[in-house]
């Protein structure tokens, strides 16, 4: 089977095509992904796949115009055809006086240190699944989940000598255990499959499911909460497109217009994008070297994610978060970390006098971008806590609240953090949070 190709194969092919391109400027973004994933549900393996994908994106600039053509076949002949078609597409456009030339400044790419990925073949994944199913069966519970590994190779090259290559890896094992109407969930995200905590994830999910049975209804209202790291990760996932994207700021659809530097959150909240802390590509899709970028510093909103185009408009340096250009979406930060707190995890929960412990949040979406309000559901283990101890499970609730309010009512952040998967790609490093108030707007009834 094809694996991630030897570095020289694609590099050589692309270099040759760049040299031969008749366009004034040519850029290639090559990406190749192999995802091995075993999926199980109701105590049986339901899907087991090896997914390959490969894309070569060709952008040309010629006579003040630009266009992009994507292909999945990667050979000299197809490349020549793709460049030719992209050139033809430029010819139908009007000249763009504001077109930004492709990146030509020398970039220094600081390598992201990935350990040897190791292997997790279908048999090893099946073994992990067998363990989860067997353990849950002993308690007459149902197990669902995934065991997966993903490897990606990305190359960005252009006519001006930009040549960036990066590799990413991600492994994940998650389990949802269900019994008598109760459900529990846990997940392990690591770089190397061998570091996945198969036993720990299974035990935590099962323990939650057993505690979650006979959940009682709770009226909507404001409650103190402890949000476990997965729930905090879900909240953080909303921020790249609601708060951190410089294009929204420029277009006037942003909560902090003219207020950069102002304090919006609790002083213990610091959020940054840093691929050397949360592994990812050390460059963006135009080849700009990624920089650690702080968005929230000690509660103050201090920064935005820029591609070269928004950076030019605001007269600042790009931060290395650009997507393949041209696009209408702006820059995306996908390797987010919230700074850890000083409170040990146990004490974060122990310090909750009366309130809710939330395992997971589900299906978050925007209510109003201008005040960062969002809505979503609790899921897979929501508990009423008194004096730091779980008293009983609670039926799921919908929350409607603003990120500004949630991150302003921080009582404690855990010193431990967990790696969570980002929705699109990338990862999020999140602590557990205790908040003095979260607004729950309606009950789910289960």
């Amino acid at each position, binding site marked *: *089977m*094809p694996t991630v190709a030897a570095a020289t194969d694609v590099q050589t092919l692309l270099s040759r095509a760049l040299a031969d391109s008749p366009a004034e400027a040519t850029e290639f973004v090559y990406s190749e992904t192999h995802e091995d994933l075993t999926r*199980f*549900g109701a105590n*049986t*393996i339901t*899907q*087991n*796949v*090896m997914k*390959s994908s490969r*894309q070569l*994106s060709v952008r040309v600039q010629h006579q003040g115009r630009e*266009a992009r*053509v*994507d*292909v*999945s*076949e990667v050979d000299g002949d*197809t490349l020549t*055809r793709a460049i030719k*078609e992209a050139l*033809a*597409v430029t*010819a*139908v456009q009007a000249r*763009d006086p*504001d077109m930004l030339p492709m990146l030509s400044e020398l970039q220094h790419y600081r390598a992201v240190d990935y350990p040897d990925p190791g292997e997790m*073949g*279908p*048999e090893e*994944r*099946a073994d992990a*699944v*067998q363990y989860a199913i067997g353990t849950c069966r002993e308690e007459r519970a149902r197990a*669902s989940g*995934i065991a997966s590994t993903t490897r990606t190779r990305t190359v960005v090259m252009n006519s001006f000598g930009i040549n960036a290559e990066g590799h990413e890896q991600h492994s994940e094992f998650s389990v949802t255990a269900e019994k008598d109407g109760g459900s529990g*969930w846990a997940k392990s995200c690591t770089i190397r499959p061998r570091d996945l905590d198969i036993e720990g994830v299974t035990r935590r999910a099962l323990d939650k499911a057993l505690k979650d049975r006979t959940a009682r209804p709770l009226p909507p209202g404001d409650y103190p909460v402890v949000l476990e790291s997965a729930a905090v990760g879900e909240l953080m996932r909303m921020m790249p497109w609601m708060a951190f994207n410089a294009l929204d700021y420029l*277009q*006037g*659809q942003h909560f902090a217009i003219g207020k950069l530097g102002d304090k919006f959150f609790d002083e213990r909240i610091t959020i940054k994008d840093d691929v050397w802390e949360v592994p990812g590509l050390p460059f963006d899709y135009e080849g700009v070297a990624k920089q650690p970028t702080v968005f929230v510093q000690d509660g103050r909103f201090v920064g935005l994610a820029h591609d070269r185009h928004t950076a030019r408009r605001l007269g600042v340096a790009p931060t290395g978060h650009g997507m393949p250009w*041209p696009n*209408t979406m702006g820059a995306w930060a996908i390797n987010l970390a919230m700074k850890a707190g000083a409170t040990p995890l146990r004490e974060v929960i122990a310090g909750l006098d009366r309130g809710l412990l939330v395992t997971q949040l589900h*299906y*978050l979406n925007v209510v*109003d971008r*201008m005040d960062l309000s969002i*809505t979503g*559901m609790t*899921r897979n283990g929501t508990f009423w806590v008194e004096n730091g101890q779980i008293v009983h499970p609670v039926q*799921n609730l*919908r929350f*409607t*609240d*603003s990120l500004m309010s949630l991150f302003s009512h921080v009582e404690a952040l855990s010193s431990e953090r967990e790696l969570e998967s980002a929705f699109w790609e990338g990862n999020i490093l999140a602590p557990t949070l205790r908040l003095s108030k979260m*607004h729950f*707007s*309606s*009950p*789910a009834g289960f």
Partner: protein
Amino acid sequence: MTLPMLDVKPLPVGNWAGRTKPIVDAALNAAQLAGASYADVRVVRTRRENLVVKNGAVGELDRSNDVGVGIRVIAGGGWGFASTYDLTEKGMVACAKLAVRIARASSRALEEAVGLAPEKVYRDRWQTPYQIDPFSVPLEEKLAYLMELDRLLRDRPEIAVAESNISCQRERQWLASTEGTFIDQEITRCGGGFEVLAVGNGDAQTRSYPASFRGHHKTMGYEIIAALKMHENAERIRDEAIALLTAEPCPAGKTDLILTGSQLCLQIHESVGHANELDRVLGLESNYAGASFVTTDKQGQFRYGSDLVNLVADSTVPGGLATLGYDDDGVPAQRFHVVQDGIHQAYFTNRELAHTIGEESSRGCNRAEGWNNIPIIRIPNLSLMPGTWELEALIADTKHGILMDTNRSWSIDQMRLNFQFGCEAAWEIKDGKLGKMYKNPNYQGITPEFWGSCDAICDNQHWDLWSVVNCGKGQPGQTAEMSHGASPARFRDIVCGIHA
């Protein structure tokens, strides 16, 4: 000038009768020799063209061409799937053998061996009917259309962003199985839309047309673009966005609610569509998307909505984004009631799971995104059948209420019960007349209570097949398209105006 679309090399997928068929046969044989009791091969080639004009300039102009093969097998009673872009015989045979190895690993953790509902063997070709091939329309013509639209949209200073698009897609798929089925299918999709962002008065407000999230799409040709009447509606939508900047917020409380067809589209999708996918119902999606409140004991007897509510799945309806000849199990397209006169009737099934609810054959709902994903149960076209009301008469019949239009956001719980939707714009209804505009409207409900409160549905003249082009499901994640037909409908006593 008509630009030639980049054509992948004519072989191996361009000529089925020539070199590709023997290669696919070799892959099927390799799978059987390795121990597969069933195998199918899908060679898929997808062309896309996406054109976006933003604030007077080309915002996106990209074309793509993607080709590869996915091989699915049953061996040792378990599923295995592998995919490759290497379409040589060597590459496809290796892919088939890997799929068998993966299937054997699956067999280590099975409750019961996978079995497929019987299905006839088909040798057929099917393609989307269309009048104008969207790939044959010159780019200059598309650009000129969008540039003129852009000019109309930005003719007021409050408009910070105007974005309009036209996109088209053609998917050619060859499906061959060890049962002898061979289906050559070509699906063409086309559509477009626009949105404007108005900024002022300390606020920013968006309006879209004909629907949000890149507009309205169907399985048809370029003729859809003229039918959408984007130019004709540009000034109205632009002015509504500006009016929203000074509109009052949607009031909080319970009231009668009229939803337009474009919003009902997503309401149907989330609260009926996903809830009736049989894999969810059986708990097979519990770890990710969730399960469903429509448990199998409810089939045929559960009251899903009022007597007026008829929801019909139809993969044969002309123009539907999920309209096709056969699904990826090789099962012919079908039409059936999911809800009839308010009572639940049926689930979306595939050949693997139909037997779990006592059905002898699949309802043809198994689809995969492209070549590198395994087919999973997908919502087909699913529509709320029209009623008898004129919209004007329905508004006149509503003493106090709110009319909401165009989806802005959506959220629903893991059992598909508690939902909350936001819309772009709303209007007060007072004494049977539309009144002032409201901004940031939203509403919340519980699925069967909500559909149970439906007491009026507008007629055929107001009905259209609305599109969902970005339905995500599964791990690895897959995107699928489908349509939901709807006309405006009224729901009594709904919670509106939920805010932080």
